[in-house]
């Protein structure tokens, strides 16, 4: 069976060690994690975890079922029709190319978020493919540091 990429949202009860239950499940059963993000859901006792994973359809089915078996997991959503976004921060050395860097960020719907004495930080939030392209394009300005945020998704 061929591997497919899936974005899975997991709604969990806010309690200690719930994240380790989930990461432990992936490690113990040999499931793959490409990215993972977590944040509390406002005004609730729950958190939203987004995992991007890859596997055969049988493995993906096992992932959702095994996740669902964890006691503090309230809901598992295997996304199909979704809006998917990721954020990246890139730190560049400051030279005479600030205008070029700014133009690059803007081309990817991003912006310059900080300018220091010797560096400048650009930020882009977009679809994961576009983030990948942005990082590739940043290469020519010798980025000092690239920090990706991991994917979040919401069903349409």
């Amino acid at each position: 069976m061929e591997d497919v990429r899936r974005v899975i949202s997991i709604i969990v009860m806010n309690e200690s060690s719930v994240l380790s239950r989930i990461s432990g499940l992936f490690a113990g059963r040999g499931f793959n994690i490409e990215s993972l993000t977590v944040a509390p859901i406002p005004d609730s006792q729950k958190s939203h975890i987004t995992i991007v994973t890859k596997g055969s359809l049988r493995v993906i089915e096992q992932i959702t079922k095994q996740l669902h078996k964890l006691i503090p997991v309230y809901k598992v959503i295997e996304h199909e029709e979704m809006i998917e976004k990721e954020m990246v921060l890139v730190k560049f050395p400051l030279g005479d190319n600030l205008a070029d860097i700014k133009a690059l960020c803007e081309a990817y719907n991003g912006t310059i978020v900080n300018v220091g004495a010797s560096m400048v930080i650009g930020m882009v939030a977009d679809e994961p493919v576009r983030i990948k392209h942005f990082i590739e394009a940043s290469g020519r300005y010798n980025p000092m540091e690239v920090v990706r945020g991991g994917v979040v998704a919401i069903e349409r």
Partner: protein
Amino acid sequence: MKMSGAQMICEALIAEGVTTVFGYPGGAIMNVYDEIYKQTGFEHILNRHEQAAVHAADGYARATGEVGVAMVTSGPGFTNAVTGLATAYMDSIPLVVISGQVPLSLIGTDGFQEIDAVGISRPCTKHNFLVYDIKELPRILKEAFYIAKTGRAGPVLVDVPKDITAQIGEFNYPTTVNIESYKPTIKGNEKQIKKAVDAIVKAKKPLLYIGGGTILSNASDLVKEFASITQIPAVETLMARGVMGATNPLLLGMLGMHGNYSSNMAMSETDLVISLGARFDDRVTGKLSEFAKYAKIIHVDIDPANIGKLVSVDYPIVGDLSFVISKMIELIKDEVNPDRYHAWRDILARYNALHPLKYDDSDDVLKPQWVIEQIGKLVGEKAIITSDVGQHQMWAAQFYPFDRPRQWINSGGLGTMGFGFPAALGAKRGFPEKTVINITGDGSILMNVQELVTASEYKIPVINVILNNNFLGMVRQWQTFFYEKRYSSTDLSYQPNFKALAEACGGIGYDVATKEEFDEALLDAIAKDRVAFINVSVNRFENVLPMVPAGGALYNMMLEHKESK
């Protein structure tokens, strides 16, 4: 009412109807042991090792169907208990294990006897809790019992820091449980059940594939009724021995690596597998791509994750087997024509006549299979049989005439040597009036041999029949077959004096080498009502047959091995 955390634990156990707790004290759990000393609601059995305490609770749970309870201290007490948790986890046995933990203020400091118990036990428990606040303790205890026994059952660990057991709090034991994120599916989808029934009615060669879930769901009578109405032949897994009853004409036997010929052939030729609480374990299926190759599959399981995990399923039904099979009986009663499967039953009967389960008995040396059959003749359905892991376990599963569910207790999923003796203690506590016999090997028995002392002290007279081949026999068998007889570290010729060992610990011992001696010893042990070792010298090089080599197709069985004669 206001009370300490330690008292809360005792009160909760009593409220849950617990009558026996197996355990071992230590620093972090001492407050609870102090309350145990003062209360009269349950008895505490001091096993001589934490692993044995958990296995004993497990044996109790398997025999009675109730939740087993064990208690251990932090650090090494807990780590000793891990094998017990894992054993119960693999076989879906409901346990609540309470462990002491260092005080909250010391957690994370590498304190004395601190170990991350919830971290270590996460993959081998159904769920676990670390108690951070005494206010949470009553709810957590209630939820622990609820989670352990509902849905797909399993062990639950409650790790309690020492300061919490000393603190005073309000104790109102909850009467109901509502966990928003935990709602097991019990009923089974009616439309799916109907479709499955239609498929059964239309099949030509259907086969009941009965797993341990049938026993866990207390569905054995219903499954038997279903078989009898439809006259569909049945195979049992290692964990399901006893469901159909040894004399049931529809039962072909056990399938899998050491299954009998007709069972494995039935699975290879069936056109419809009706899987009832079984999980397609690799020791059952052999080579997956050849397993039930010509069949559609109905899979009834309480755990949705079991369905489609290893084989593609045509009729998935998630639910408690008791509910699902009742519904199936109702729907199929007036639809099914049992004669339809007549030709199929005939084929299987011919397979069975061709290669029945057999062994060559001998007058010169005791054969382990004979010993097991003889136990069956002497105590039969009256006894509860536990077992360790190895050849003796497989022979017991093959040759003992199991007649009812919960009569056969063994570690199937994890295959834990050392399980049988403490599990027998637990089973005997559950059914003091029944004869409880652990069929074991000279390797396995030593892995919890200290329980002789527990059994003597608490007068729990279980009988250990040691099928002594002076080998780690099952490993030796693989070495014979697959490693050109290089017997690397499996020769157990250096032996303790088992008779003297039993007697040194307050039990009774027998050395047996003939059939007459065996009968005498077993009857005497039953009459003496003391913990016993019956050390039976058996043929050293006997092999468990038939055998499907690991990874081979079920229909490729080794039926004979020239040199085993």
